[in-house]
């Protein structure tokens, strides 16, 4: 057991998998010599050498194209896209090539890639460096999508992603890099597609992921203490595969569903979860399913504005109070 930051977990996750399997190579901008802009990959170059830890030009299409080609021919490469907003400049490779090629070739081609990327807001970086793009990825058939919320999950889900034979979009919450938690020693491997019950509860089910997990838990604690509303909190951990079974089971007990999402509202993963539960769990619901999201706007830079729009503990408490109370 050691206390580890989410940032340090990135290093440990990469090192664990690179140590284990020499087919794992790692590419990205400024990731090698400089250790990455979030300083999450410092030391990897020294440990694994320049053949496996590679500084690239600012060429996201080339980086991800290279990732895909290398994966098709025997490697299990990992890339960093510095900020997830930059998926915009290489979306074709992700959405049209990586996601579809196995299918189009009737299973001839396997593309075991992981694309790590800093995701989400909270750092006052403005609209082009703060997006939550998990829904871009979830909307494309053929991509798996993981968003770890803790150092442990970062390592365990990353290991699962590297060992998975399909392309995985691995979104690290930038606002969590500095957060710390106890992490067990030794190898850590989790499974894709298993939600985690962060808090059990009987009145309301809160479904969330990534940085919002912590705010949801805090809100749940306050709702319990201050208002006697007992909320279950589910961390989905991956959006694809989606552990909707865990959600349905919990809503079966609580009869109320809330999602807490960092992404803008329209077509979010929350809409998907609400839609499935509204269909398959219709008769278990006692009241409207409610989504708590960032409004459907680009993110503002100023601290006071950004704090207004990303779901806060206060807002979660307030909405649940109002809608359940």
């Amino acid at each position, binding site marked *: 057991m050691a206390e580890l930051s989410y940032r340090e977990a990135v290093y440990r996750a990469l090192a664990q998998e690179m140590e284990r399997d020499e087919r794992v*190579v790692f590419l990205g901008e400024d990731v090698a010599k400089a250790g990455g802009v979030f300083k999450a990959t410092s030391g990897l170059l020294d440990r694994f050498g320049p*053949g*496996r830890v*590679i500084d*690239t*030009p600012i*060429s*996201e*299409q*080339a*980086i*991800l*194209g*290279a*990732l*895909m*080609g*290398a*994966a*098709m*021919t*025997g*490697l299990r*490469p990992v890339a960093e896209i510095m900020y997830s907003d930059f998926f915009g400049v290489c979306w*074709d*490779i992700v959405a*049209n*090539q990586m996601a579809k*090629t*196995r*299918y*189009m*070739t*009737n*299973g*001839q*081609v*396997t593309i*075991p890639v992981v694309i790590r990327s800093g995701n989400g807001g909270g750092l006052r970086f403005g609209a082009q460096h703060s997006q939550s793009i998990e829904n871009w990825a979830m909307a494309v*058939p*053929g991509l798996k999508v993981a968003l770890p919320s803790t150092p442990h999950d970062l390592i365990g889900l990353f290991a699962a992603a590297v060992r*998975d*034979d*399909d392309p995985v979009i691995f979104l690290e919450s930038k606002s969590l890099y500095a957060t710390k938690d106890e992490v067990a020693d030794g190898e850590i491997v989790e499974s*894709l*597609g*298993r939600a985690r019950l962060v808090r059990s509860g009987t009145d309301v089910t809160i479904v969330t992921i990534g940085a919002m997990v912590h705010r949801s838990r805090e809100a749940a604690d306050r709702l319990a203490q201050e208002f006697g509303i007992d909320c279950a909190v589910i961390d989905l951990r991956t959006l*694809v*595969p*989606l*552990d*909707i*079974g865990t959600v349905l089971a919990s809503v079966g007990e609580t009869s109320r569903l809330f999602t807490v999402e960092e992404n803008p509202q329209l077509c979010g993963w929350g809409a998907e979860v609400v839609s499935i539960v509204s269909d398959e769990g219709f008769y278990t619901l006692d009241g409207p399913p409610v989504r708590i999201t960032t409004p459907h706007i680009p993110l503002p830079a100023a601290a006071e504005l950004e704090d207004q729009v990303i779901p806060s503990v206060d807002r979660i408490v307030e909405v649940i109070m109002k809608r359940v109370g």
Partner: protein
Amino acid sequence: MAQVMFDPSLQQDVRLRLFERMVILRRFEKRVYDLFLEGFVKGTSHLSIGQEAIAAGFGEAMQASDWTFATYRGHAHTLSRGVEMAPVMAELMGRVGGLMGGKGGSMHLTSVDHGMMGSYAIVGAHLPIAVGAALSAKYRKSNQVAVCFFGDGTTNIGAFHEALNFAAVYDLPVVFVCENNLYMEYTSIHDVTAVEHPAADRAASYGLERIIVDGNDVSEMYRVAQERLQWARAGQGPSLIEAMTYRHNGHSRADPGKYRPDTEVAAWMQRDPIPAYRRRLELEGVAVALLDEIEERVAVAVDEATEVAKASPPPPADLAWRDVWSDGGWQWRS
């Protein structure tokens, strides 16, 4: 760089194979064209008729373990890697016997067993992917080379630029082959490109040699292919070749190609790579009977492949739900 010298006996062999390859590509695609008209081929389809020398030259020069990355105009490159005709034809017809069970269609021909690593239908996308294969070859010291074919129009998209620089920076074993057939879809490449030779005139941007070849001369294509594959295998890094050629047909199924001046078309028809090569072989003393025999053998093979493809049924419905994921299925919920 020195011209590659052949052993004369080998040379005869190679030459006949080069000829046969071209005849295969031509006769196969002529048949495909007929099958369109008869309604057997659905969707779209892009023929390489007139451009066969490029695929044939490279197909002959490449080693079995090398990789081909092609565009939607990929029938020729697929066949030239030794893939059988019948599954290719069946794929174009959307049959279960197709190379990808009918799921990919004409624009995505792939046969990993033959090193045919895919046909990509988004202009430019496969250049960086080929670069990745080359990265893997270098990392694994496998001595493989990735060969990536694309058109003149592809040189104006961003992925071209990124891939070329990336390959050059890491000295990767990849050969980029621009088949300059003078047109993107219906627009002359000259109307939309700042330089005369869209690939070769940009080679210097990546520290590469300026290489322009006659893409309708199969022996020249073979020579250049050998040379550049060797270059890659020797660890010298990428090459960029611009092969001048012309497509006899329109861009795709729907296109009669009317935007091209008649005189231009006529001039290039005169330079059809297959009759030209046949004339040359005859002049060099290859027996006419030998060449005729090849033509006939191929004709029979095309007929047979057509029958096999036609006999293949449409894919069963459940195939649509297979192989989204590596577990063979499509489920996104767990």
